[in-house]
């Protein structure tokens, strides 16, 4: 089978699934190595972008999914008027930023950084499955330790959790350099 054939099959698999498909499942269906799948998908991504296709391959935590492009939203809206979900509040975003960067983290620590109580924000974020209880601290009251979810990655378009600290750190360095 040539690479073109593999690309076609991967496209078909992602199309049928709708949901994210793990690289492991793709490799299993194609009966090739995961490494090879990765390489093919990387090429596909480039091709899709180069050809300005209507779909793109997004990657979240070792899973791949087909999605439309933001620039086509307007046209899709004309035809289907999909509802845009309400964005997160400033408080929720702030809380999420702290959790993303400092996870696992307790509510008390978040409150200290923010200078305000974060109960409501934590509730919203849990409801939207953007954060989860990852563990509990071994101290009095066994406080919950929060962390981000895969949904968080998808929601903000991060490939993996490793993308995150890097990006955040860059920003901080950048901010510091530009304000000192």
């Amino acid at each position, binding site marked *: 089978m040539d690479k073109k054939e593999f690309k076609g099959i991967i496209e078909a698999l992602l199309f049928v699934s709708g949901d994210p498909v793990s690289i492991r499942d793709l490799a299993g269906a194609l009966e090739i190595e995961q490494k090879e799948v990765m390489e093919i998908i990387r090429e596909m991504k480039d091709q899709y972008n180069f050809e300005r296709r209507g779909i793109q391959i997004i990657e979240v935590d070792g899973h791949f999914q087909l999605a*439309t492009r933001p620039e086509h939203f307007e046209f899709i809206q004309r035809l289907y008027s999909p509802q845009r979900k309400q964005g997160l509040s400033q408080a929720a975003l702030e809380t999420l*930023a702290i959790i993303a*960067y400092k996870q696992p983290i307790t509510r008390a620590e978040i409150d200290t950084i923010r200078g305000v109580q974060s109960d409501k924000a934590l509730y919203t974020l849990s409801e939207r499955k953007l954060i989860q209880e990852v563990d509990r601290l071994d101290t009095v009251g066994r406080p919950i330790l929060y962390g981000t979810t895969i949904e968080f990655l998808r929601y903000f378009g991060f490939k993996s959790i490793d993308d995150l600290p890097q990006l955040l750190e860059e920003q*901080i360095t950048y901010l510091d350099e530009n*304000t000192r």
Partner: protein
Amino acid sequence: MTYRVKLEVFEGPFDLLFHLIEKNEVDIYDIPIAEITAQYLQYLEDMRYFDIEVASEFLVMAATLIQIKSRMLLPQQEEDGTEEDIDPRQQLVERLIEYRKYKGITEELKKREDKYQLLLFREPSPVESYVDYEPILINIDISDLCKAFDSVMKRYSSLYNEDTGLERSIRRESITVVDKIKYITNRLRYEKEVLFQSLFGDGETRESIVVTFLAMLELIRLKRIMVEQRNTFGDIIIRNRKTKAGDK
């Protein structure tokens, strides 16, 4: 004079302080504490004016600011001989800087949220439209069902009727699974597709039916054949499994 200014809402005391620092364009490491404190307190006044409940955190910060201010006004004590004094603002500055980190990230997240909200996905295709190889699915079909019924009824009647037990003992071995596997693969060599039903000729014995079925299951397990039902109620068709990847 009523002044109808929409009061900006701040997430917390740090958010407000940070806003004041930016607004006054002052160095975060050298905050003019008297000025900022005055503005901070004014804001709390405005909040009261607009009947906005002032959260306790804002009041705690107000107290902190006033405390810092007074400490800065006090003459520096040098009784322990230390040259450089600890800036009373230091702790506050550190916390502000920590807070600012996440403030920056929050903006980035907001931007990303706006962008990725515009991505749309596709509903998964119903699995059934791809997997209606039901015999592969759970490896049973109507004849299995009959077989099961038959055997359970036999067992049931044997509890009350001795005859059936006798009948069973004189049954003879005839066709083997291997024979039937040969038969099926042989037919598939000449026919592209074989109807499942056509595997059972007239006058087939029950063993023969069961053995044929077992042979079919074995071939499915070995991935030698594919069983397909194109329509939900359609005929069951047996085909050689295509090995597109090329046979080794």
